[in-house]
């Protein structure tokens, strides 16, 4: 940090305002991404020339799946990537591949949905209350799914659903939704990493763009994934999104931009410049109440980025969401890139992911509240974010009022009414939060074999 500040002081003093560029240690970078609409800040920063403005020559490369992407960042093939928030945290605490990955920039809020296949939807429908106009009433609780799962269970058929990665937001969101409706999604243990111990619903990994194809093939009955792969199911007529994560937990944190800690240490100014460009891209995406979104959708629909058809991407990116064919509703905050301090890497967001890892047994043993705080601070780097924001404000490219300068890194607790099961969340007290959740490990509990003990 000290080195970074020193470097900064030196550069701002020496370089004339016309060339207000940081002294970059490395200027040719390769970033990875997965074909999802929430990679938009990267595409926009490239296409609108924000990277170039910082003197960065960036190549963006689509990756096959989250594992390949993570390995790329760890072994240095990629300098940084659009990542699942759980990835830097899991890598840093050594769950899965161990490596110290940090994030100075949170990429967006919301943006996911849970989709079930047409047959499951038909079976769920009778359990869902309808509105006056006959359309189903949202949000839909997993309670509507419970009888269906029960039926499959009594017939001896496993009820399979897909998520994108063991430490993905989607895994935790799907689990959250199921558990809130009384369905058990199964535990992880150090010996058994399938995550299906004691499960009512069996979750397995499928890379995001393959979700619709896997659903169509009948391998899974539903999935939780980011856009455009829920809307794609609607367009293809193979599935129905039952709930968006906005309804699950209003303005929940989504992807982050992940970097190797070594990289950030070796190239502090480069890291800062990247963060600056990404903040500008996020601002552009939300400017004038989403006025730039149609243009962003056009960029994303190019084959080298997301590549799905324009209409499919536009469905969710322009403030709407289509549940069933023809049932299109306004969800102005379906994808948030800058409003509500979306890009600030809050420690409380990191802590939520860690609580979910503990809740489902990926963190096998109980940890004190201080541990959650320490891990969050070693991965989330709001100090880099604020440095970058300060530079942008000084250059007249951002508004002072848009950034939470005095935050201690913890968001105000999420009130109970913003979360589907009515359990409030406060990142400062993770253990107390775990106690308040009905299904999941708490206190000193451990998974031994296939039993919860303690």
């Amino acid at each position, binding site marked *: 940090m000290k080195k970074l500040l020193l470097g900064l002081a030196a550069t701002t003093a020496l370089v004339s305002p016309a060339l207000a560029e940081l002294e970059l240690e490395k200027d040719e970078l390769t970033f990875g991404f997965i074909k999802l609409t929430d990679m938009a800040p990267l595409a926009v920063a490239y296409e609108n020339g924000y990277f170039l403005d910082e003197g960065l020559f960036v190549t963006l490369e*689509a990756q096959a799946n989250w594992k390949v992407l993570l390995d790329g960042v760890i*072994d240095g093939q990629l300098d940084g990537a659009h990542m699942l928030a759980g990835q830097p945290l899991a890598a840093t605490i050594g769950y899965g591949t161990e490596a110290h990955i940090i994030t100075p920039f949170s990429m967006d809020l919301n943006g996911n949905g849970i989709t079930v296949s047409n047959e499951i939807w038909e079976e769920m429908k009778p359990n869902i209350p309808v509105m006056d106009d006959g359309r189903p009433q949202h949000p839909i609780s997993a309670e509507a799914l419970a009888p269906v799962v029960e039926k499959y269970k009594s017939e001896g058929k496993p009820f399979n659903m897909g998520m994108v990665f063991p430490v993905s937001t989607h895994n935790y969101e799907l689990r959250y939704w199921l558990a809130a409706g009384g369905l058990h999604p199964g535990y992880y243990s150090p010996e058994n990493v399938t995550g299906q111990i004691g499960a009512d619903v069996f979750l397995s990994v499928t890379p995001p763009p393959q979700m619709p194809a896997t659903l169509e093939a009948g391998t899974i009955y539903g999935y939780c994934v980011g856009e455009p792969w829920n809307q794609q199911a609607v367009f293809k007529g193979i599935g129905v999104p039952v709930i968006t994560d906005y309804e699950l937990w209003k303005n929940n944190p989504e992807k982050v931009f992940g970097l190797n800690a070594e990289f950030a240490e070796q190239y502090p100014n480069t890291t800062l410049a990247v963060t600056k460009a990404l903040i500008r891209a996020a601002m552009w995406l939300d400017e004038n109440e989403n006025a730039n979104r149609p243009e962003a959708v056009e960029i994303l629909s190019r*084959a080298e980025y997301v590549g799905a058809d324009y209409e499919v991407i536009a469905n969710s990116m322009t403030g709407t969401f289509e549940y069933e064919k023809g049932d299109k509703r306004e969800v102005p905050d379906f994808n948030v890139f800058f409003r509500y301090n979306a890009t600030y890497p809050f420690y409380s967001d990191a802590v939520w992911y860690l609580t979910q890892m503990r809740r489902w047994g990926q963190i096998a043993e109980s940890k004190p509240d201080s541990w959650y705080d320490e891990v969050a601070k070693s991965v989330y780097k709001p100090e880099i974010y604020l440095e970058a924001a300060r530079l942008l404000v000084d250059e007249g490219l951002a508004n002072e009022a848009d950034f939470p300068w005095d935050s201690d890194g913890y968001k105000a607790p999420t009130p109970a009414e913003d979360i589907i099961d009515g359990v409030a969340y406060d990142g400062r007290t993770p253990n107390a939060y775990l106690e308040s959740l009905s299904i999941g490990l708490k206190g000193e509990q451990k998974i031994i074999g296939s039993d919860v003990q303690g």
Partner: protein
Amino acid sequence: MTTVDPEFNADAAREERRARLFTRINAADKWFQVLGLSWATPVLKAAAGDNPRAQMTEIWRLLIVPLLSICAFLLLWGTLAPKVQTSLGAVPGPAQVWEEMVSLNQDAKAKAAKRAKFEAMVEKRNQKFIDAGQPEKVKEVAFTGAPTYYQQIWTSIKTVFFGFLIATVIAVPLGIAAGLSPTANAALNPLIQIFKPVSPLAWLPIVTMIVSAVYVTNDGWFAKSFLISAITVTLCSLWPTLINTSLGVASIDKDLVNVSKVLKMNTYTKITKLVLPSALPLIFTGLRLSLGVGWMVLIAAEMLAQNPGLGKFVWDEFQNGSSSSLAKIMVAVFTIGIIGFLLDRVMYALQSLFTFTNNR
């Protein structure tokens, strides 16, 4: 003495010219065959005035039947494809695939324009630094945008040749050793049997891990992804060359071997003067097979690892799932097929060059 017929000489000259022409056509025929244009011989012969009926049967067999079969294929494809409804719409017919080919070409042009713009921008930036008296900051930067379809093709071709070259360098000496010495053969045989059937998809994770661990420099000669694809190609394509070389070497005429003994040749001379020339036809057969295998393997490796090239193009399009994706994948399939065919022709041409003069 006067000639009775003044035309006599001219006739003889014409006959002679015709004979020369036919010898030339016959000579060219070898090359036509190499290039896959064997139908050109009867066409030329007919044009030169050879017995049209005999040439017609040749033309029918070599040119018209293949053309008819292609037309029948296109017709069948065009009528059957729209009947298969996928969730992305009907399976594209030849017309849609052609359209996508055109659109990929236009896309390449658009990207070239973008590239020019990028280069102009870098130029401007460099000029700015020069004007500001900081010439040390001037930098040439390669274009950072997405590669065009043609660039993807070129990347794949480069990778397959690199992998194939390594395979050849390993396989030929090992093959010679196995062919010359029964002991070496006994040592190599079990390894060949076990590793030959391994799929590229199984090699890939191992190669990826090892290359990542060993090749740690970030600004070396090669990109890691390039090395990973190329080495996977090597591991899968080395076996046909190895087996054919050892077979070729083992089956050298015993008389020749005896001659070498009489002449007391040392091993090096024996290999260069005797073993290699006689084993060459079989070595080349092995190389041809190897290159074919390598090309197939490469596409699979690129798909799985998302390494740049045609395989990545196919996988990206599969993941995009847009309304034009299927047609684009079919364009790639034809490209892969045609390039595979051309690669085989190149190897066949080389083989013919080395083995025209003798029929050992």
